[in-house]
């Protein structure tokens, strides 16, 4: 077990390195660099004088962008080993702080989203597998598929217009995570304030996931239901719900575990669009802004940190897999 985990951790190194190399290449080989962007963003408002190359070069030197690419990469790598992700070009804040600000928000949002998706989809998926081609099956398939097909930004726009703007209804706040000054509220008030802010964004993040997960659960359940051991369970005289839940669902959920591992990148990446529309300062927006500002250290850090966390989560799901499924042992893999 321990050797397995150690081995998997070792195997992550090349993967993370690969991600770092790809990100580094994408970021550095692209046109536009932070130095000239910074130099140019000066509006003429203050004064006007010539903008010379020296100043751009100076900024480049300041950022360490004057060295050859491989040297830059080596420097970056050396820093990473000590978990130093550098400071943002944009505001000189430590990158780790910026991510530390954004990550909890994105995680709250996405974990809630995933929870809701799972809570809704698994029962629906399991039920439709038990009654295939029934009314619920057909109806949920079409409804979920339709929801899945709605572009989230469109839905977000519509919901804002209808439920938040005050033109029609004024039920929900439009932006943010919590009201300004909510810190004076008692904790339950604060929680409900946050919840109330998150209804619409989470609704927008959630509705598309039902289709995939419920169909996945359904397929997995259908596969399990036709297994011989289900027949054995029935032959024992077990009640149908017990057959379905204890013998069926338990086995059907095993593949869903692996899915959890692969959900994490999306979770860490946040939803750029929803965060942008609802002004939620999460990872998606941080990433988007960093890309626009060519904030290399932040982009690199987002890519590597989310990769590392994803790999760890995949590892954890694999270990959980072995916990749930006794057929898998690590000694013989």
């Amino acid at each position, binding site marked *: 077990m321990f050797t397995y985990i150690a081995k998997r951790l070792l195997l992550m190194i090349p993967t993370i390195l690969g991600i770092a190399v790809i990100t580094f290449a994408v970021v550095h080989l692209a046109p536009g660099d932070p130095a000239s962007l910074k130099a140019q963003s000066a509006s003429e408002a203050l004064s006007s004088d010539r903008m010379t190359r020296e100043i751009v070069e100076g900024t480049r030197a300041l950022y360490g962008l004057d060295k050859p690419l491989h040297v830059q990469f080596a420097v970056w790598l050396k820093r990473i080993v000590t978990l130093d992700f550098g400071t943002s070009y944009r505001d000189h804040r430590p990158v780790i702080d910026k991510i530390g600000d954004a990550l909890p928000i994105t995680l709250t949002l996405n974990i809630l989203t995933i929870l809701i998706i799972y809570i809704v989809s698994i029962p629906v998926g399991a039920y439709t597998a038990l009654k295939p081609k029934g009314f619920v099956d057909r109806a949920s398939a079409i409804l979920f598929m339709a929801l899945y097909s709605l572009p989230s930004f469109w839905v977000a726009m519509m919901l804002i217009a209808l439920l938040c703007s005050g033109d029609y209804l004024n039920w929900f706040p439009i932006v943010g995570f919590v009201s300004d000054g909510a810190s004076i509220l008692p904790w339950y008030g604060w929680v409900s304030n946050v919840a109330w802010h998150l209804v619409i964004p989470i609704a927008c993040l959630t509705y598309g996931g039902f289709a995939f997960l419920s169909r996945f659960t359904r397929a997995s359940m259908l596969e399990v239901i*036709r297994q*011989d051991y289900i*027949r054995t369970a029935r*032959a024992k005289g*077990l009640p149908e719900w017990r057959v379905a839940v204890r013998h069926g669902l338990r086995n059907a959920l095993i593949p869903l575990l692996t899915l959890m591992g692969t959900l994490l990148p999306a979770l860490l990446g946040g939803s750029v669009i929803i965060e942008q529309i609802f002004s939620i300062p999460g990872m998606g927006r941080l990433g988007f802004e960093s890309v626009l500002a060519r904030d290399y250290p932040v982009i690199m850090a987002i890519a590597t940190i989310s990769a590392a966390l994803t790999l760890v989560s995949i590892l954890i799901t694999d270990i959980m897999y072995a916990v749930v499924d*006794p*057929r898998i042992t690590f000694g013989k893999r």
Partner: protein
Amino acid sequence: MPLLSVEHLTTHLFTDSGVVRAVDGVSFSLDRGEALGIVGESGCGKSMTALSLMRLVPEPPGRIVGGRVLFQLTATGGPVDLLMLSNEQMRKVRGKRLAMIFQEPMTSLNPVFTIGDQIAEAIKLHEGGSRRQVQSRVVDMLSLVGIPTPAQRANDYPHQLSGGMRQRVMIAMALSCRPEILLADEPTTALDVTIQAQILDLLRRLQAEFGMSLVLVTHDLGVVAEVAQRVIVMYAGKIVEQGTVDQIFRQPLHPYTQGLLKAIPPLAKLPPGTRFATIPGTVPDLAHLPRGCAFADRCPKVRENCRENEVPDDPCNVGRLVRCFYASNP
């Protein structure tokens, strides 16, 4: 009065390509303590018959469309038609009075529970009892079916056991509530020949010990000959011949039974150049059965009559069911 009597049991599979008459009006009876063999080739409806008795026909596509399964549930009082029971009532019969074991011991056990759990589940469900009582019943059952160190083995997961051991566990599970009837659906087909012998011995022993009735579904005439007292031969969803073991093996009257027996290579070197006996042709499509005798196309004794008319149970009056107009010794 027989323990179980099946009357005109009919089970259909409703598929895209038509209605498959998997079990087509099957009638037979089973006495207490009797071992009945059902033989036939793949697709003849023998497994579906067994599943129909348990009301475990996969639905869809299958459905029991007719007949009666009369089970003498109580010593006094009349028999009960299992097909008329509510699901709830039927569940109380399943596992408790009527148990079943399946062909694939590899897949018939739930991989994520220990075998002890899986046996205990049935005991708890039908008989209740404290945890400790149930546990000791589990260990008893495991040792009964010849599993060494049963107390430890109870904590094993199915994948940790060999095929033969798993089939023993299946038997232990089926017998855990001491059912009156055990339906064994090809219990040895997936096993190696040396293990097969072990399991057959075990089944025979336990049947005698428990005094229960056994319905053995198999395609292997050898297995039937060793275990059963009475034999049913099925073809295309119908019983084509029924009789005692001696009758079937020494005096087969239906051409199909005769063909089957001939097709089995004997355990001795045949003279060189000998051709293997075969039954020509293939099993007919159960969804599009021809009129008359389903075996007509492959029958060496076929005559016009066979293709025209439905064959009754015993047209030749030989005193037992032989579904052939021209039943005769080979």
